[in-house]
């Protein structure tokens, strides 16, 4: 039996490898903690979250460490996916017909590669905001080491951290909604790793066709 590594039995296709899934959830779990603890510090109306998470002091101590875990995951994702997240000529056409995508008129969409331009935006959005959050976060983590003649850095860090947080929340809401409710099968793909052939062909036509071609050549 000459099994193709991507085209699995029973009409399934391997979408995410174990390594990809593991790193995704490393980022996912740490981000959810960062989001909840961050919201606690964002507004007094949500400070109760810090109480639930073990108290304000514990939450403040752990938040930066989860940030480090998150950024390690993002760095690993960069190494893993950066090339596949690169711009391709068809991206423009995809964005031009984003209205059809929102209305679920997917037959009007240009065929997507392994990652569609929306996923690329998510990836680069989290990467850029993540780096800014890390840099500003380092200042907020250890403000006592910022000498007074550089004290303007502190309020700048506070502000940058808040703005970048909001951008990631926007990305996160859309990502979670699409990954769970909107795109059936997507959540399973990042848990078990596989999708149906129909799913692969529908959502990532170019990628799936490439898998088929590779499979034929391999033979």
């Amino acid at each position, binding site marked *: 039996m000459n099994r193709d590594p991507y085209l699995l039995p029973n009409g399934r296709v391997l979408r995410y490898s174990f390594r990809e899934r593991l790193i995704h959830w490393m980022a996912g779990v740490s981000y959810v903690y960062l989001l909840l603890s961050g919201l606690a510090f*964002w507004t007094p109306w949500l400070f109760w979250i810090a109480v639930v998470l073990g108290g304000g002091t514990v939450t*403040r101590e752990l938040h930066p460490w989860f940030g480090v875990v998150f950024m390690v995951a993002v760095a690993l994702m960069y190494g893993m996916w950066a090339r596949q997240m690169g711009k391709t000529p068809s991206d423009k056409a995809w964005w031009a017909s984003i209205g059809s995508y929102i209305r679920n008129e997917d037959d009007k969409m240009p065929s997507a590669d392994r990652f569609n331009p929306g996923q690329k935006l998510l990836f680069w959005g989290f990467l850029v905001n993540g780096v800014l959050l890390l840099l500003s976060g380092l200042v907020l983590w250890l403000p006592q080491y910022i000498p007074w003649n550089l004290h303007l850095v502190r309020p700048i860090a506070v502000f940058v951290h808040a703005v970048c947080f909001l951008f990631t929340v926007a990305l996160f809401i859309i990502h979670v909604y699409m990954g769970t409710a909107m795109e059936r099968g997507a959540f399973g793909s990042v848990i078990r790793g596989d999708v149906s052939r129909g799913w692969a062909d529908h959502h990532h036509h170019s990628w799936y066709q490439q898998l088929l071609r590779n499979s034929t050549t391999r033979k």
Partner: protein
Amino acid sequence: MSQAATEIVRISGHSGTVPGAGLNREYQVCKLVDTTTCIGCKACEVACLEWNGYTFTQTTFDNTYQTMPETAWNYWNLIKFNEHEREDGSMMLLMRKDQCMHCADPGCLAACPADAAIVQYANGIVDFQEANCIGCGYCMSGCPFNIPKFSPKARKVFKCTLCNDRVSQGLEPACIKACPTGCLHFGTKSEMKELAETRAAQLRDNSGYRDAGVYDPPGVGGTGVIYVLHDAKHPELYGGLPRDPHVPVLVQLWKKPLRWIGNLGMLVGVVGVFIHYLRFGPKVVKADEPKTEGEGI
């Protein structure tokens, strides 16, 4: 305030006027530091340590009279020394007692996210409640005077309390009590302001300090600690006293417009995707059969 309990409003069966009725007591307290009569003896530093129960710890000597470069979490009161050379080449030793300014518009309080970790009392004292402090250090980003200091051991932030414990019992702050020259005064804000202005006028008229004046910066709504300076036009000469301190603009932007824009945005986002689902539903993969049949398996 505790004094209110002794103030009489009405008396039963009493003929004549009610003693003290209609009294208008000023609660706002203020510390006046007259830098022109400070001799740099540091009695206030010692008194502060003693009253607040801190022991003297190792410090950094930088070849001046100054005890340490800046105040510390367990050293809230520090005289800043500056060997200032005047235009005519003569030398002047400028000494300013540095401590929390107890701003009317405190940046530390504006920036703090922890419930009830910083309170401002009606008498103007801005006090940290360490039991509620989570040690995030945002107050350090909000303060224009470099006052809140993080204790690595306690993982919390500390600063001068203006001897809130003493003042609430009708005593003056420890530093005031220790001052041997009378350069430190304590009283109501209006009293201290008047005294300071009188002294500044005296310096201008009789002592040749044409730019003498009072430091009570309006950018933070005035402060609970005011200074008489020989040269009020250059407050930065006095150990880096900021010329126009205010709550950092970015902290204000963050706490006011950005927070509301953000809250609205997050709400719109969550409601938006929900409405999207109601309107358009999930993406349906029509046939779970590929258009092109793979031949691998």
